[in-house]
């Protein structure tokens, strides 16, 4: 069994923009040549999130977040971004079968930029464990 660490740097803008990164992660999985294993994904920082969903669901989630965790009405300056990140999570774990991510084809892996930023660099750490 081996452990491979790599990372992706994604340029983002926001707020509430979903960046599809499944293709980039699949490339890392293919290059790892791991047939059976686990892909541990994590985005650095206290305000982004990783979401595994269809495009339709991601669009719905974007709308729903405005009601679930509104932008204003909190004590901390950008609490909405932190709380969205904490509740949705900055990490996802996906099994690898036959050197492919074991999620349906119509599902995308999104990096969610919660903050009102432009040209922001986010780092996604990918750990592949397996053989």
């Amino acid at each position: 069994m081996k452990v491979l660490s790599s990372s992706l740097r994604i340029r983002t803008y926001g707020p509430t923009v979903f960046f599809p990164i499944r293709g980039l992660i699949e490339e890392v999985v293919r290059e790892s040549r791991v047939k059976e294993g686990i892909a541990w994904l994590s985005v650095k920082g206290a305000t982004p999130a990783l979401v595994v969903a269809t495009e339709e669901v991601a669009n719905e989630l974007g709308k729903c977040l405005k009601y679930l965790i509104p932008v204003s009405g909190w004590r901390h300056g950008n609490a909405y971004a932190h709380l969205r990140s904490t509740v949705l999570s900055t990490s996802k774990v996906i099994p690898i079968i036959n050197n492919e991510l074991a999620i349906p084809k119509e599902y995308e892996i999104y990096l969610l930029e919660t903050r009102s930023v432009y040209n922001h660099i986010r780092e996604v750490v990918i750990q592949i464990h397996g053989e």
Partner: protein
Amino acid sequence: MKVTVRVVRLRIGSSGYEAVDITENVREVVKGLGLINGVVVTHTPSKYCLVTMIEYEPELLADLEEFMSKCGSVSGLAEALVGKSVVAPVVNNDLALGTFKRLVFIDLSRSKGEKEVVVALEGTFK
């Protein structure tokens, strides 16, 4: 390099209703056991306790408390909503969290005393 799993139990002293920044406790385990590359799963088996990742800042933690209470969940439901485990990557013998994100243990049990956190590491060790 051989991949192994190590599990460590930590005791956290708690008033029964508080948030404790346990990032350095977990980092100490990572450094102490010499995990070079891999992942660390931090979990609490204690009842009505949570482990999450958030900036450890009093106003933000108060906002999180308010959010949980709005969801009707400053108790057992928070375990489902916020969760009892998190996964963090370890790169070059250190946690790769970014600048502000911390591992935070939250006790909602209203019962004073020692609580438990289990840290499981998988990867390549020194």
